C-alpha cells in the first residue's frame, strides 16, 4: 500500500513538473508600448533601438519564486541564440539595484549576463499592463508584439526556441 501511494505521489509530481506555461500568439499583431529604462550600469535602453532584432521582454522580480526559477533557462536561451539577432531585456519591477545585485550573486552559478533593466517607479508595469509575475512578451524584428506568456517556462525548451527562431530573418 505504501509503495502504491509512493508511485502515485511520484507520478503526480512528475506530471506537475512537466506542466509548462505556453506562449500565446498575439493576434492581430500589435506595436509594442514604449520602454525606456536604465540597466544596472546606468546605460539607457530604448526598445525602439532594437528594431531588426527579436526581443524577449521579461517582467520579473527577485521576490517572485517562478521568476527566479526561470532565470537560468533565460541565460541558456541567450547562449543558444549567440550570434543571432536576438536580445533579452529583463525588466525588474521596482526593486533597488542592491536587491538585484544580491540576487545575481546568489545566481552566480548560472552566469546571468543578459540585460537587466530597472523600472524603479513601476511605470512600465502599468504601461504594459502586467498583472502576473513573470510576464513575457516576444517582439519581432519589425517591432510587432508576436507572443506573450503568463508565468514561468523553460525558455530553452523546444517550443520557445522554435517560436523565437521562427521570427528571425531567413538566411538568403
Amino acid at each position, binding site marked *: 500500500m505504501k509503495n502504491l501511494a509512493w508511485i502515485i505521489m511520484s507520478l503526480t509530481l512528475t506530471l506537475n513538473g512537466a506542466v509548462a506555461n505556453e506562449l*500565446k500568439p*498575439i493576434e492581430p499583431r500589435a506595436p509594442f508600448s514604449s520602454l525606456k529604462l536604465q540597466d544596472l550600469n546606468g546605460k539607457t535602453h530604448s526598445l525602439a533601438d532594437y528594431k531588426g532584432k527579436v526581443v524577449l521582454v521579461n517582467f520579473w*522580480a527577485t*521576490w*517572485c*519564486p517562478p521568476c527566479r526559477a526561470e532565470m537560468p533557462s533565460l541565460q541558456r536561451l541567450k547562449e543558444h541564440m549567440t550570434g543571432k539577432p536576438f536580445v533579452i531585456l529583463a525588466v525588474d519591477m*521596482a526593486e533597488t539595484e542592491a536587491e538585484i545585485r544580491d540576487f545575481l550573486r546568489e545566481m552566480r552559478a548560472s552566469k546571468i549576463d543578459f540585460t537587466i533593466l530597472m523600472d524603479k517607479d*513601476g511605470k512600465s*508595469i*502599468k504601461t*504594459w*499592463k*502586467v*498583472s*502576473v*509575475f513573470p*510576464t*513575457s*512578451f516576444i517582439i519581432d524584428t519589425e517591432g510587432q*508584439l508576436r507572443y*506573450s*506568456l*503568463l508565468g514561468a517556462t523553460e525558455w530553452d525548451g523546444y517550443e520557445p526556441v522554435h517560436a523565437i527562431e521562427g521570427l528571425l530573418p531567413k538566411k538568403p
Partner: protein
Amino acid sequence: MKQISAFFLIFLFSVSAFAEPSPGSVKVAPDVEVPINAYGTNRQKLILWLPSEHGIVSAEHEIAKQLAKHGYTVWIADLFSARFLPNLPSSLNEIPASDVAQLIRAATQKHNKVYLLSSGQGASRALEGARLWQQAKPRRPIAGAILLFPNLYAASPDAGEAPTYLPITDQSHLSIAILQGNLSPWYWQLDELKTRLELGGSPVSSKILTGLRDRFYFRDDALPREIAARNQLAATIDDSIRHLPPLKSRKNP
C-alpha cells in the same frame, strides 16, 4: 462542602454570563452547518473570518487568538468543511453567498459591530455575502470589511490586457480597508481597485505592507520579515478597523 459547591456554581454562572459562548457551528442551509472556531469574549465587536481560496489555514487561528487580545471576538468560519469541499480555489465557487449572509445574520444577532475579514479570492465571497445580507435591509449594518491582498479579478487577464473585475467590486456598499503588500502584481492595481470600489459607494482605506508578498502570513517560503509581519498582523488589522472610513448612507444598497 455545601458552601464550596454553591461558590463553584456561582463562579460557573458568572463565567457563562460574561463569556461569549462559542457557537460551535451556524446553520446556514437546511443541511449545512458551518463549523465555527471562536476566540475572544467581546460582546460588542466580532470579526467574521471567511476562508480564501486556500481554505482556513492554521496561521489564521493564531492571528485570531491575538485579535482576541486586542478586544475582539473572532469567528473563523470553515465554509469549505461545511460543504465537504477540498481546500482548492474552485471550492470557493461552490459556496453560495447565502452561506456568508447567514453567518452575518448569526453574528449580528449577538454583536453590535461585525467586521468581515478575508484574503485573496475570499474577498469576493465576503462582499457578495455582505451585499445579500444588506438586501434584506437588516437593522444592524455590517461595520466594515478588512480585505487582505484581495483578488477581485474576474479572471487572470491575458498578458498586456487590463484586468476585469468581478461585478461585486462596484456593487458593494461597505466601509472597506485593504491591506496590500507591495511585492505583488496586485499592488500596481490597487489604485484602480480602490476607484472601482469607491464608484460603487464603498469608502476605502488602504495600507501598504512594505516588503511583503501576498499570502505572507502563511507562505511555506516566508521570509524572516514576513514571519515578523505575521506576528504583527493582528495589531495591523486592529489598526485598520480603527481607521475604517465612514460609510455614507445610501437608499438602495
